[in-house]
């Protein structure tokens, strides 16, 4: 990071919702069955790509570069 971080774009989406409810525009969407799988997927992507995980509190998590 150099200077103030500017607007960040969503890197990936990990959601418990169905493909009808959540669709990817510019970011890939990972559809998961339960919270355990959601944590697993989100954590692995986070560790691999250094993105931060943010919880939208509606079953959808956003993965964004910090």
């Amino acid at each position, binding site marked *: 990071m*150099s200077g103030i971080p500017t607007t960040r774009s969503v890197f990936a989406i990990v959601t418990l919702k169905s493909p009808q409810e959540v669709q990817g525009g510019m970011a890939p969407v990972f559809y998961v069955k339960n919270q355990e799988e959601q*944590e697993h997927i989100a954590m692995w992507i986070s*560790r691999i790509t250094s993105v*931060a*995980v*943010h*919880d939208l509190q509606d079953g959808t998590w956003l993965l964004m570069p*910090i």
Partner: protein
Amino acid sequence: MSSGSSPPIHWIPIGLGIAAGFLARLLALRSDYRHYPGYPAGYVSHVTLGFLSAVIGAVFFPALAAKEYTAATFLVLAATNFTGVRKVEVSKLQALDSFTLVQRGAGYIQGIAQAFEERNYIAMGVAVLTSIAAQVVDMYFGHLWGAAAAVAVAAVAITLGLVLKSGPNLGNEVDARIGKLHFEKGSLLYVDDVMLMEVGLPKARKRWLDEGVGVIIIPKTRRGAAVLWDLSQRQAIAQSVSSIVGTRSDIGYPERTPLCRMDLPTGHGSAGFAIIPVARDPSRVLEAVRRTPVLENAKTHAVHDPALESWEDEHHIEEGR
């Protein structure tokens, strides 16, 4: 004075000036927890530059007195040179910063580089004053009194230089106390009432609760309130603390980055800070916050708000400088 030839150059004032200026630079040179300079090579370059500035300063007045005006103008060249020193320091620190987890930030880097430049000027100034005292007193009262005057002036100038050397620490302007880390609305990390960030991963939230240390920073002077609003100042706090107690963070773990955020709802200029330290000693975290230097560039952001002033009166916050 014989006509045509210039008077002889006095070597005693020059020698005394060099010694005093060099001593001023040496006394200002210390490596502290900021880890800078680190290795002997770093000292060598600063000691050498300090010596050169002492030489230039010491020669200035004797050269003028001997009507060697060309020699005196070298002082101007030196100033350009020291500006160059600052630029080199900035680019070096910026390069280092680009590969650091908790960065110093632009404000801190400029402050460090400026300090190095200024210390050379102080060495030069001490040398100038000392050599003037030595030569002038020498002319009227002889060598012994000249040397005595030089020592006295040098002592005063060096002390003044050491006072000018560094600005206040954050501890002079703010109070720091331990706050409770907790999560609200599921995933928002708070220190007491100050929201810091959103932590999505449940395991990361547990890590913060188990191992994190939260600090509430409350201004006790008006300047304290002003500097905390400065982003560079808050980055300096994060960098300073993590360099003292360590931060259990790495590439791939962005949610563990230590960070400092303002208490926005009240707008009183308080801030919250959180870190997952390696050495889990809250008192050391507090001490590190207090010892963070107040950045020179952060001093000028004065906020004048009637609501703030009444709050300040209520909380006995003294007038800012």
